[in-house]
């Protein structure tokens, strides 16, 4: 385990976590001001995510994993979202229904990159799935991150369920669901909008569409009639907007606006984030770098030109994460792989009262 650097980040996070103020009246959520420190923090988290993904691709190439799918290109909005989450366990906090390009979100929330490497390799130590699921398929109960499903768009069906509990609970917790543009063609996206707008039962759900204009090899505009899928929410009278997801600052503000609305109005919101798919769909298509705008490079240019940081300072961030990652890899490749004894673990949950099911006596 490589705890030091990352744990330090976690400590700093405490300062940055958006404030939840319980006023005399309704509880209020006060997002942190996007000052210089926070801009750097955002950069740090974006690099953390990108460096992790690039390490995953290297692992795939060098035989330390079978299959890669992940989020390079989605770090700007993803990191902003991760820093804005009301993080914790239970309906007072946000629930996250993520998809396979959400590494930036969980890394910005404070996850350890090494755990993602573990899932990539499929070790027993993989905390998300014990080597059972593809990489970037998270499940983190203390932070309300529900299991990422291998089926496209089904996460949208579950978000109204967690949001229903949050509506009943009160407070500012909301349910955040992410997915791709092509996936929005499944009826489930519309089910989520319908269930979130039952009269008198409106639900605090923030629905994100990561619009990268592709579903595997299929160009979005050849199969759906609009590059502005968020406008599908119009028919449900759901507030919606679009933002340049390659711009972390714009994404931050768009997310703050959306989350403020969802948290306090207790109603749904659809936000389309336009972003790049920097290494293609997955390792199936080679995971080669695409010639699309890179949010990290763009942001670094901006930080330098606005004198928030120097090139050297930014490079140090890369060095820090790359070092942590290569140390992590060294650890991960020594860890045990699943064996026969692991196959039947966790099929059933044993209740606290010992009232789990009878194991098949067969």
């Amino acid at each position, binding site marked *: 385990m490589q705890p030091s650097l990352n744990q330090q980040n976690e400590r700093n996070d405490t300062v940055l976590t958006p404030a939840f103020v319980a006023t005399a009246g309704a509880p209020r959520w006060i997002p942190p001001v996007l000052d210089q420190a926070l801009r750097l923090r955002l950069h740090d988290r974006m690099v953390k995510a990108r460096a992790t993904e690039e390490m995953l691709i290297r692992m795939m190439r060098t035989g330390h994993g079978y299959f890669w799918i992940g989020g390079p290109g989605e770090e700007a909005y993803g990191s902003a979202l991760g820093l804005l989450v009301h993080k914790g366990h239970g309906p007072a906090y946000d629930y996250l229904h993520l998809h396979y390009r959400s590494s930036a979100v969980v890394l910005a929330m404070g996850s350890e990159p090494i755990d993602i490497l573990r899932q990539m390799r499929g070790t027993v130590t993989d905390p998300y799935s014990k080597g*059972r699921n593809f990489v970037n398929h998270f499940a983190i109960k203390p932070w309300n991150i*529900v299991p990422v499903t291998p089926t496209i768009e089904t996460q949208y069906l579950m978000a109204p*369920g967690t949001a229903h509990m949050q509506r009943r609970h009160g407070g500012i917790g909301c349910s955040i669901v992410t997915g791709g543009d092509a996936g929005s063609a499944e009826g*489930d996206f519309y089910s989520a909008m*319908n269930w979130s707008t039952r009269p008198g039962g409106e639900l605090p759900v923030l629905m994100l569409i990561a619009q990268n204009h592709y579903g595997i090899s299929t160009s979005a505009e050849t199969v759906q009639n609009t590059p502005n899928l968020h406008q599908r929410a119009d028919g449900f009278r759901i507030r919606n907007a679009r933002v340049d997801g390659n711009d972390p600052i714009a994404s931050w503000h768009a997310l703050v606006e959306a989350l403020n609305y969802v948290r306090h109005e207790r109603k749904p919101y659809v936000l389309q984030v336009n972003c790049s798919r920097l290494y293609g769909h997955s390792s199936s298509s080679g995971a080669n770098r695409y010639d699309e705008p890179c949010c990290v490079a763009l942001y670094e240019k901006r930080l330098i030109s606005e004198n928030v940081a120097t090139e050297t300072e930014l490079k140090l961030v890369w060095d820090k994460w790359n070092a942590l990652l290569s140390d992590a890899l060294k650890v991960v490749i020594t860890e045990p792989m699943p064996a026969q004894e692991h196959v039947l*673990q966790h099929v059933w949950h044993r209740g606290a009262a010992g009232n789990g099911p009878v194991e*098949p006596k067969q």
Partner: protein
Amino acid sequence: MANLAQAIRMALHYGETHLGVTDIFGQDVGAPLGGVFTCTQGLKTAWNTPLDERGIIGTALGIAYAGGKPVAEIQFCDYIYNCIDLLKLCGNAHWSSAGEYHVPMVLMTPVGAGIHGSMYHSHSFESMASHIQGWTIVMPSNAKDAYGLLLAAIADPNPVLFLAPKGLMRAKGDELIAGEPQDERTLHAMIDAPVGDRAGWQPNWPDLQDYRVPFGQAKICHSGSSLTVVSYGRQLPACVAVARELEAEQIDAEVIDLRTIYPWDAATVFASVRKTGRLLVVNEDTEITNFGEHLIRRVVDSCFYDLLAPPRMLAGLDVPGVGLAWGYEKHSVPQPDDIAAAMRQLVAIIA
């Protein structure tokens, strides 16, 4: 005695008052109807959903993730076939998250033929359901078991599928449920919604008691030594009735009510087959890749040398549906005469 629908309703009431049920929902589950079979009348946590089965199961999973205890209903099992992926996700969440999450949800759905449901409203679902992992699957054949299995389902921290035979919803039990008033008219007055305007109606619940039927425990409903008949749900009472009739012919059938489809009670079934040497499985699902074939495979595997005759299955014909007109149902779903014939045949085989 309570009928099966009333037993379900009482179990749900007990569940919401004693076992932490937070939400009972589905199409027409809330007021004013309280369910197309009246199973959810008068329940305080019952609510109506949009007409969207995928939304129902997805929402149940979300509620379970967020600490609630949902009991969701699919109005007829016949509408569940666009949700098999979601059933798989409910059933694999614990395993896929390496034990991080678990899914304490109950899914109720009426199954089977016998109500002139026509070609798409007469499906059995246990065969397909038993091929989906991570679910406990129960199917009562009488009101008391319905109550006991549903309480066990609610208390379980894993997903449980509760299959209620459509054709038995109005069938009265022959054993009182703990707390149920002696007189069924009293019960009716207490918990059945009135026919007309229900706006002001409130149920008056009896003082129900905890009673659970443990999963994986079959029940011998008629003992005998000539052959073993394994059944469940709507076909079970038919099997028992036939077994009683055939006593006159010196055929002593041992009729076993499986009650739990998964995990099923192999010990009881195997012991009986070892005693009788003959097995008949009766259900009304279609016959190709039928759960009864799993039972037969396992019995052949474990009791081959005890068998005095080939084990048989009597099940639904492999046709695209149970047609509306009676002639179709009569000739594609096992009838008491078919059960009697199959039992006679099996006993007649000379070992």
